[in-house]
Structure formats: structure tokens, C-alpha cells
């Protein structure tokens, strides 16, 4: 088991394993999203107060959750890369950042679209949940900008890993903001005391969407890491052999 992981962290080995891994993540992910979309739009009953408008949670909740999970990958990759000097870990962080930024943006936009009719506002400055999620987006932008502004990959890895680790505190703040301070945003639904505050016919499509989005994120991340690894190892012998092979780098 341990040896398997150790072996996986060698770039050429990951490059091969990653290729077989991607369809195993992407296909169930897309199937779950297809089911969740259909069930969320047609099988789940409308909400007693929000009517059909609540259905945006089927995109908003997975996007918001992944905006934090992607950050965890980025920070974890950075931390492992710094401590164990593992090349692949830094590649994970670099690959996760644009995905995390995209999900954060999606969470902010869907939240605003829902907030306009329900709360009566697109955006409220000073709300802890909204503001900390926006800071999360800026952290992703900062991470990517820092990375692209340093030409030396090893230096870029170190600097951006430190930034990712410092920003971890903001992920904690995003998660607990609705509990620590008064906020316009509602509290936890899925993990609240006494079970989820949601009917089963609304809940199952949501869970399907959350797992589906997560698997799809995994597939996209695995693919981005492959690209990242190939670029970083472009001067090595295994990449040269791969490219010059008759089947052309498959």
C-alpha cells in the first residue's frame, strides 16, 4: 500500500496511472450529474417558500463545496511539497488552482442570482460569508499570478506553496462564518443537528450532484496534473522517449 503511493509519486508513473484513472472518475461523475440534474429539475418538489428558485442549490452547493476542497488540495500539495520536497505535490497545487477559482466564481455568481429575488440583493458588502468567499477567489488569483510571475519552477513552487498555506485560515473562515457571526446567509443544511433540513426527494439529487461534481473535479484535476507533469519534465529522458515513440505520447 505505502509502496504503491510512493511509486505513484514518481512523475512518469503518475503520467501512466493518471491516464487510466481519468475515465473511472469522469464517467460515474457525469452519470451522477445527469441524474442529479434531471431529478433536481423534475423529480424534486418545489420549496414551500422559494418555489422553483431553490433549485439553483443543485449547482451552488457543489460549486461552493468544491471551491473549498480545491483549496485544500492546493494547500495540502504545497505543504507536502515544501516538507518532503516532492515534485508531484507541487504539480497538484498548480493544477488545482484554476479549477478552484472556476468553482469559486460559479458559487459567487449562482449565489448572487439566487440572492436577488430571495434576499432582495445581489451582493451585500460586510456579510462575512459573502466577503470571505470573495477573498477565496482573490487568493486563487493571487496564487496563479504569483506562480506565473516567477520563471524558475522550483522558486515558484515554494513561494506559491507558502501563499496557499497562509490562506488556509480563510477556508476555515468561509466554512464557519455563518456560525461565528451573524450573516445573511443561512446556516448548514446537510450537517445540521438532528439530520439534514431537507426533504428526501430534494436531498438525493443534491447528494448526487455533490458526488458527481467531486468526481468530475477529480477527473479534471488528474488530467491537469498529467499536463503539468509533462511540462515540468519536458527536458527528461522519459518524456523524450514518450514523444518520439511510434504512438506519439499516448
Amino acid at each position, binding site marked *: 500500500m505505502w509502496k504503491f503511493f510512493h511509486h505513484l509519486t514518481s512523475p512518469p508513473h503518475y503520467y501512466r496511472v493518471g491516464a487510466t484513472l481519468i475515465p473511472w472518475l469522469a464517467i460515474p461523475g457525469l452519470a451522477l450529474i445527469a441524474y442529479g440534474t434531471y431529478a433536481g429539475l423534475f423529480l424534486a*418538489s418545489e420549496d*414551500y*417558500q422559494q418555489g422553483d*428558485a431553490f433549485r439553483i442549490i443543485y449547482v451552488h452547493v457543489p460549486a461552493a463545496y468544491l471551491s473549498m476542497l480545491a483549496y485544500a488540495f492546493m494547500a495540502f500539495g504545497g505543504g507536502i511539497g515544501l516538507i518532503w520536497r516532492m515534485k508531484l505535490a507541487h504539480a497538484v497545487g498548480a493544477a488545482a488552482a484554476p479549477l478552484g477559482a472556476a468553482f469559486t466564481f460559479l458559487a459567487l455568481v449562482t449565489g448572487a442570482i439566487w440572492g436577488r429575488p430571495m*434576499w432582495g440583493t445581489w451582493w*451585500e458588502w460586510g456579510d462575512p460569508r459573502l466577503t470571505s468567499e470573495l477573498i477565496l477567489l482573490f487568493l486563487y488569483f493571487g496564487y496563479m499570478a504569483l506562480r506565473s510571475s516567477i520563471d524558475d519552477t522550483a522558486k515558484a513552487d515554494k513561494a506559491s506553496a507558502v501563499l496557499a498555506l497562509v490562506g488556509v*485560515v480563510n477556508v476555515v473562515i468561509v466554512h464557519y462564518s455563518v456560525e461565528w457571526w451573524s450573516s445573511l446567509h443561512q446556516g448548514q443544511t446537510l450537517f445540521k443537528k438532528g439530520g439534514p*433540513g*431537507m426533504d428526501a*426527494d430534494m436531498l438525493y439529487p443534491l447528494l448526487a450532484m455533490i458526488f458527481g461534481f467531486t468526481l468530475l473535479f477529480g477527473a479534471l484535476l488528474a488530467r491537469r496534473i498529467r499536463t503539468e507533469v509533462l511540462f515540468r519534465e519536458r527536458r527528461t529522458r522519459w518524456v523524450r522517449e514518450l514523444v518520439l515513440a511510434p504512438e506519439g505520447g499516448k
Partner: protein
Amino acid sequence: MKPRQQRMLAVGLAIVGVGIAAALTFRAFDENMMFFVEISDVVAGEYPKERNFRIGGLVVEDSIEREKGSLAMTFRVTDMRCEVGVEYEGVLPDLFREGQGVVAHGRMGNDGVFVADKILAKHDENYMAPEVAESLAQHVDEKMQPLQEVGTECVSG
């Protein structure tokens, strides 16, 4: 200590350090971090006097009074202990209704009535079908009656 362990310690200390710094900062600015002021604090006079602020609570049942021929209205907001009267003129969000969470932005008038220039509705963390809500409401009504009476021990406006 091996270099690897030193790096591990450095990373751990950095995370803990940033966490402590953030906790201290938020403790210092605690009041400014609150999106709205609780009704009990408003009634006790603990609110910003010279500037606008937000109050948050539930709209009291049967307290909404609309002026005919205009968008002006008054209603009362409670946190189940205290109550504040609110004046407002303008458009309301979809979720605004009696018994629902609401956030009002504005300032305190001299007569103890909160003059709002913006009303936001707050949604709670429960989602359910209309039929479920109806049957639930019948049970809650029976149990919730005493709570309605508790709400009037301190009143403003």
C-alpha cells in the same frame, strides 16, 4: 532534528501563527464583523448611534400594517425576547412575510422606531415541499403559542 522535521515544524508554526493572528484580529473587530445587531441589544441601547446599521430578527405575526395608496408600512421585529418597531417605504423581497427572518438597514429614530431604508429577507436552512410545511405548521402552531407571549418583555417603539 532532521531538515525534513524542521520544515514540518516551520509549516505547522506558520499555519498556527496565521490562525492566532486572525483570531486576535477578529476578536478586536468583533462588532464590525456582525452583519446585523440583535434586537435585544438594540432595545438595550447597544447600537451605533451616529451611523446606519442593520437589525436582524423575525417579523412578528399580525404586526404588518400597510398605508393605503403607498408603499409605506410598519411592522415589528422580534428575537423571541425583545421587540422593535420598524418603518419602511419601498419594495420588499419575495421571502418577506410574517414569522420570517428579516434584516433591516437604516437608523434608530428618536421615538425608538427603527427607520429602514432597505429590507432584506433571511432564509433559514430548511427546505421542504409545501405539503410537508403545511402539516408541520399545524404541529408547530400548537407548541409555539407560549413563545409569542414571551416576546414582549422589552419593547422599543
